[in-house]
């Protein structure tokens, strides 16, 4: 079994988001970038399978992004991926998510991968399109928002549990497949300093647009959305602090929720 894990680099969740004066993007300078938390679960799941199952030949980590994205790739390698692929080209920056899926499909098609793991969504754009779109572009089945993954003894199929409203769907699939990870699947181990050093020596293949045959046709078939006019969230009116003893305050809160907010 060959595993591919997709890694995305996103602003740290504690970052203060500022909008650029031209409103075309957020302010990027000085923003701390980290591995997308949902992709961390996917990385750990890939490495766990590698450690537990003798039939797992390799785990390859793939990232699309500028030179600085190499840092996120290195985290995946330090945690236990065997090698990396860095899709790095100015031509890739203008792609929307469906086109990104088309790009990745074009790159990994024929690569012999059996399982592709990634987070259920990225915490910057929060769209979660990549996993299902990549599966469709490859004509593979997928399981989204997976919280549990159990392989059959022969390593050819698995049972997954995916989270839905107040329940879990239990599904069974044969490989090849795309699996997107939700919170609860596993937590990524901490990449130790020696492992981060060793990760520098692991092979990383840089892929440019010219290396991808049929790229223009593939990305030209889907998507084409463009982000514009970034705005801060609408301001919430200043809140009311309700004073008094707990009993009194509770009564007043219920009154306000009924009469003013009409929320209950």
């Amino acid at each position, binding site marked *: 079994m060959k595993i591919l894990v997709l890694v995305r680099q996103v602003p740290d969740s504690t970052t203060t988001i500022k909008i650029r004066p031209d409103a075309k993007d957020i302010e990027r300078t000085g923003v701390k970038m980290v591995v997308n938390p949902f992709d961390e679960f996917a990385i750990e799941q890939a490495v766990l399978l590698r450690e537990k199952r003798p039939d797992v030949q390799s785990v390859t980590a793939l990232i699309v992004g500028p030179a600085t994205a190499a840092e996120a790739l290195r985290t995946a390698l330090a945690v236990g991926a065997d090698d990396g692929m860095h899709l790095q080209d100015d031509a890739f920056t203008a792609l929307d998510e469906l086109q990104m899926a088309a790009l990745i499909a074009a790159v990994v098609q024929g690569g012999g991968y059996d399982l592709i793991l990634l987070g259920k969504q990225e915490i910057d754009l*929060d769209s979660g*399109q990549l996993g299902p779109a990549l599966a469709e572009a490859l004509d593979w089945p997928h*399981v989204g928002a997976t919280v549990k993954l159990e392989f059959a003894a022969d390593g050819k199929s698995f049972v997954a549990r995916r989270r839905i409203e*107040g329940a879990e769907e239990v599904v069974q699939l044969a490989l090849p497949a795309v699996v997107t990870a939700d919170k609860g699947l596993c937590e990524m181990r901490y990449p130790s300093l020696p492992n981060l050093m060793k990760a520098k020596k692991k092979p990383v293949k840089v892929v440019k647009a010219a290396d991808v045959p049929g790229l223009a046709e593939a990305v030209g078939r889907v998507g084409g959305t463009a*982000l514009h006019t970034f705005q*801060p969230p609408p301001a919430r009116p200043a*809140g009311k602090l309700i004073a008094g003893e707990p*009993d009194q305050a509770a*009564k007043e809160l219920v009154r306000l929720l009924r009469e003013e907010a009409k929320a209950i």
Partner: protein
Amino acid sequence: MTNDILVFAEQRNDVVHPAALQLVMPAKALAATTGGKVVACLIGDKLDNAMAAVEKTGVDRIIAVSAPQLGLYSAVRYRTALATAIANVEPRIVLLAATFMGRDLAPRVAVKTQAALATDVVELTISGDGALDVRRPVYNGKAFCHVSFPEDRLAIASVRPNTFSAPAGGSGAARAALAYTPGPGDDRINVQEIARSAGAVKDVTEADIIVSGGRALKSEDNFKILYELAQELDAAVGASRAACDAGYQPHSRQVGLTGKTVTPRLYIACGISGAIQHLAGMRGSKVIVAINTDKEAPIFKLADYGIVADVFKVVPALTAEVQRLKG
């Protein structure tokens, strides 16, 4: 391509998801601009009750793709079924609810139908050049942006639940049935069962009101005061990551960045300080109440109503007051 707007009316067990009925209002507004009709598409096995519920929203036409294999959601079968409906209606725009199903299905359908897609939108307009333009939250709600669509391509958008209300009083929609013809590979996902979480408690993504607790609750046992209030308000119980990591509540109840994103009518945060990751999951709530002993807690900056006091004193008093008013 027609000027019609196709709405995917998600259902499970012949019950339409409330968020799917909320798609009709924005669909009608778009149809008024494009000069088209609103067509609802249902996919499943038994659909009579679901179709009746959709008809009440006043859609112009209802298309049912029904087959025994569609009884449970499968990403590949539903993709084939919805793509069949799209080929039949040839709409300009397709709307889905940004639910677990909608978010899972929309990207596959978009690739299959060579469309463009935006997720979790809160505002939809037709721009001057006739293309769809939507607004959506990004960076966990810390910013919004617009997404423009290409003019020459089917536009698909999933709409954030509880952004619009569901219209009522409609009737007389034309009905049609479409056959489901399994595509190659449609049987590759074998849906074995839907495992309900223990107990009959509502999920945070389904509830209009959420009572949520943080680490200040100090134990799983103490969460029962939140369950008591939730029962009176017909609410769901949520929890912060800290409370879930401490084992007070299962992670399926976690609200926040790596938990669930919720947009209820009322969110009552009890003993939650309001870490930025928690705010990411609930800042879209319509009315926010914060109860916390620390008056400097960040949650108060977001709250519409705040009480600086001990949750163990305030929450039971709230429960008693709601009970008293109900008589």
